[in-house]
């Protein structure tokens, strides 16, 4: 267990901040998918 979590950085953000992170990540990955030409399955 210790090995698999080594280097982990605790975040502990609030729910609102976390929701913003999810939305931002979705937007970012959508851009990467589009730019890289990854086809939807």
């Amino acid at each position, binding site marked *: 267990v210790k090995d698999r979590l080594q280097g982990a950085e605790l975040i502990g953000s609030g729910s609102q901040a976390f929701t913003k992170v999810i939305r931002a990540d979705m937007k970012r*990955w959508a851009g990467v998918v589009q730019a890289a030409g990854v086809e939807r399955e």
Partner: protein
Amino acid sequence: MLRLAAMAALATAAFILTPGGIAFAADAYPARPVRVIVPFAPGGTSDIMARVMSQQLSEQLGQTFVVDNRPGASGFIGHGMVAKAAPDGYTIATVDDGFSIIPSVKKEMPYDPVRDFTFITEVMSVPRALVVRPSLNATTVKEFIAQAQASPGRMTFASGGTGGINHLSAELFNLSAKVKLIHVPYKGAGAATTGVLSGESDLVIAAAPTVVAQVKSGKLRALGVTTGAGKRFAALPDVPPSPIQALPAWRSTPGSGSSDRRRCPARSSTESTERSSGRLPRRS
């Protein structure tokens, strides 16, 4: 230490979310076992994180938090179960980067990734490592990029499958470094790393803790880690931070299913974390 810090942070998160009050009586939650769905097979980082947290919550709250592995279909099975569960705080789940990627790579979604869930807290971030086969003539990210730019379309990267985090991380690397590594999909992240170990592929961007042993033994060469500028990954202190700052670290978070935010499970988490942080008495 790690677990307690995470729980205290969770309490803060819940307070922010529920300024209007708590829907559950202070002593009511959890009144029965809580199901913690991990949408991946046992043994992965999400699974380990869930088990560490569940054990701590069980000890602190006197109620069992049961990890329930529901792997398959890119997380659809497990997260779909959470989306359909009653929004009462008794079915929660872990989320990782793939949760944010899937809507972009799937034509049809069995749930709305934002509306159908209440996100409790982002627990931790694990750095990623850019690792290459040792026979490659590159010892830094800069040298690797130079080689890739000199031989467009001839160098490869391995992934655990199309649309996964290490696939898109490498595509982001392609875009950021202005190179064109060819995608070689494998069946799972472990197989992708093995593909680089065997020399079939040139590079994989993997969760750093999963490649420490191979890097230390010389079977893989780590060119950089996504710890951010100025930071080092303690397990591989000689590996510099990646100069490609756009690459994300791996994230793992607990989320919970709810279609009604007024009854979101995060309120239950408030109770849980209040106790774990010592503000409310523990159950005997």
